[in-house]
């Protein structure tokens, strides 16, 4: 017994000093097994490699993030973002993944997003029983409603659904088909429309077929949340030997280099009101009304696709705003804000691009170096954008600085408010944008004179025209530099001639 004593003491000491990894049950069609978990910020996170390996896949490091591969499907995720990505789609998680000893741990919603979208699996976590269940999806039938309306030369087909579902859009000659991945309850079998572009809609199985009146009609498709809707904007497309792919992703119809999709971000929203003027004007309202009109103006004048990060008084988290831009593969991101200062008399406009460096002197030096190399923004590579993570914007600082410069110059030219210049700051909404991005502070809402200006129709129009000209100018400049042969749509001089 005496000889046992040191052994017992050693065993007790090892129990007290080292904690065994915590494991829970993973229930999959092949049977139960144990997987390691960890806890961070009140969330339970699962070892991604163990779960994916149990299903026959792999998880490997990739840059600052990780790649999960299963049955030829690929998902990317990283420790700085609560959004993972599969091709064009985002996987939203309640908290970002964490890395412990080189191993990535993710919330269970990652598996739900990845396996739900690519393998038609249902994932559920039972915290009481400590069981993570992954099984083939049990489909519920989703109700569908359809509306077709022609507004300003565009036929808008809105497919409203009672729950979100995955789908693909297939293009035939003279028809578009939406193929839902879950069973649907159709509102009718067939219906004809008195519409310039859409002739009839037919439901068959899990397909919705939209027949068109002409072959030179194309569509931009996108989806909206809360409630879940799929929207197709049908319009005339330029005639010519354009070979449209047989399979189009729902998010991006155009893959040519250049500036085609612009995301405009009206600052704040919902309970985050932003700054408040002495007369009560709220930043969230001023930015929304300005941005809605800016979006229309950009679409009309530059013929680009414009997406707003919010179209009503709703609260959109900052990381989701850049995630929306990344999701739509936007080519440009502009966040619009109204400024505030406690110093009396502060006035003027200023434009920011991101600074992540220790000092903006360093960042400026980096931007200058990039300028010297005259390198355009990095092109998309491969079939998946893996750089969704924090610091993604760093690769675009040179272009963001040019874009911010164009915005500030046009604001100065048009508005005659004090030029406070182009600056850099570590603004959250710009981090993670995988495209040139800037944030404009139109005027000081805390200054009574500028608050009054912000309310005036004339000033709003001037600002909208200045920002449209700035985007047009940057677009022309960028497309010229990368050698896209394209007639300039709007230039500063043209804009000046036309009185904008």
């Amino acid at each position: 017994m005496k000889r046992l004593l040191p052994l017992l003491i050693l065993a007790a000491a090892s129990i007290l000093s080292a904690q065994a990894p915590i494991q829970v049950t993973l229930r999959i069609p092949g049977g139960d097994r144990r997987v390691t978990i960890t806890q961070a910020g009140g969330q339970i996170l699962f070892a991604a490699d163990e779960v994916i390996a149990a299903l026959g896949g792999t998880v490997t490091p990739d840059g600052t993030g990780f790649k999960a591969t299963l049955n030829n499907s690929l998902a990317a995720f990283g420790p700085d973002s609560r959004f993972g990505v599969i091709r064009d789609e985002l996987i939203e998680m309640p908290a970002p993944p964490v890395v412990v000893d080189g191993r990535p741990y993710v919330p269970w919603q990652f598996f739900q997003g990845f396996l739900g979208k690519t393998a038609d699996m249902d994932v559920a976590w039972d915290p009481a029983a400590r069981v993570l269940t992954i099984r083939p999806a049990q489909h519920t039938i989703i109700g569908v409603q359809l509306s077709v309306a022609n507004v300003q030369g565009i036929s808008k087909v809105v497919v409203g659904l009672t729950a979100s579902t995955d789908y693909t859009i297939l293009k035939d000659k003279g028809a578009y088909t939406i193929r839902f991945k879950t069973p649907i309850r159709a509102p009718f079998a067939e219906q004809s429309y008195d519409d310039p572009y859409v002739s009839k809609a037919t439901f068959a199985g899990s397909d919705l077929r939209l027949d068109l009146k002409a072959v030179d009609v194309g569509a931009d498709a996108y989806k909206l949340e809360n409630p879940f809707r799929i929207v197709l904007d049908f319009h005339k497309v330029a005639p010519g030997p354009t070979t449209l792919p047989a399979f189009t992703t729902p998010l991006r119809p155009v893959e040519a280099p250049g500036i085609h999709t612009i995301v405009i971000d009206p600052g704040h929203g919902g309970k985050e009101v932003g700054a408040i003027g002495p007369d009560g004007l709220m930043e969230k309202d001023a930015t929304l009304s300005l941005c809605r009109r800016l979006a229309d103006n950009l679409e009309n004048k530059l013929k680009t696709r414009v997406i707003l990060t919010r179209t009503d008084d709703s609260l959109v988290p900052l990381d989701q705003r850049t995630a929306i831009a990344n999701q739509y593969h936007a080519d440009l991101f502009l966040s619009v804000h109204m400024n505030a200062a406690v110093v009396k008399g502060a006035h003027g406009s200023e434009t920011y691009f991101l600074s992540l460096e220790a000092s903006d002197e360093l960042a400026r030096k980096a931007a200058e170096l990039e300028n010297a190399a005259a390198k355009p923004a990095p092109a998309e590579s491969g079939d998946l954008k893996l750089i969704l993570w924090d610091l993604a914007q760093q690769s675009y600082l040179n272009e963001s600085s040019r874009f911010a410069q164009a915005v500030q110059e046009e604001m100065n030219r048009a508005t005659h408010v004090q030029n406070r210049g182009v600056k850099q700051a570590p603004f959250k909404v710009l981090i993670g944008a995988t495209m040139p991005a800037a944030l404009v502070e139109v005027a000081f809402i805390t200054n009574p004179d500028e608050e009054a200006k912000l309310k005036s129709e004339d000033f709003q129009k001037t600002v909208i025209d200045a920002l449209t000209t700035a985007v047009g100018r940057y677009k022309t400049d960028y497309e010229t530099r990368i050698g896209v042969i394209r007639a300039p749509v709007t230039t500063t001089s043209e804009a000046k001639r036309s009185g904008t």
Partner: protein
Amino acid sequence: MRRAVVAALVIVAASCRRQQPLTRNLNVENKVAMRTVSLYYESPDLLLAPERRDLPLPENPAGALDLVLRELLKGSANAAVPRLLPGDTVVRAAYLLPDGTAFVDLGGPTLTQGWATGSHQELMAIYSVVQTVTSNFPEAKRVRVLVNGEPAETLGGHVSLSRALAPMPSVVAR
């Protein structure tokens, strides 16, 4: 014999929990002396400018950090110079890590509920803290701001607090 094993286990468990005291001589290490510090407030040209103030401070920087920040939050001696952080902001804690990162934990009703402000004011408020810390404590190279002891995304929807912030010369008067 069984009793001896139990006793041995208790001793092992107790020795695992015993902690070394941080210092044996508090009076020497926390000696207080008058020091002139620079507190940063916004000047009329919308940049941060230092205001000198004499304070009795412990010589140990970790102890002095918290006191300097509390002094900053009292506001300028000149009543015409406005406060940058909301008036109800408190410094809950401040500490300095050996790698040069100072942690400043702020709290108060406004910051807890969400501060309605614009970019410029938020930049000034955060960098008044960063500038005050890094200019008075050469050991501090950057500042990580927390709210109520937790990492926060921003104070008012603009400046990212997810990383430690280094001083930004462009917001400081030359």
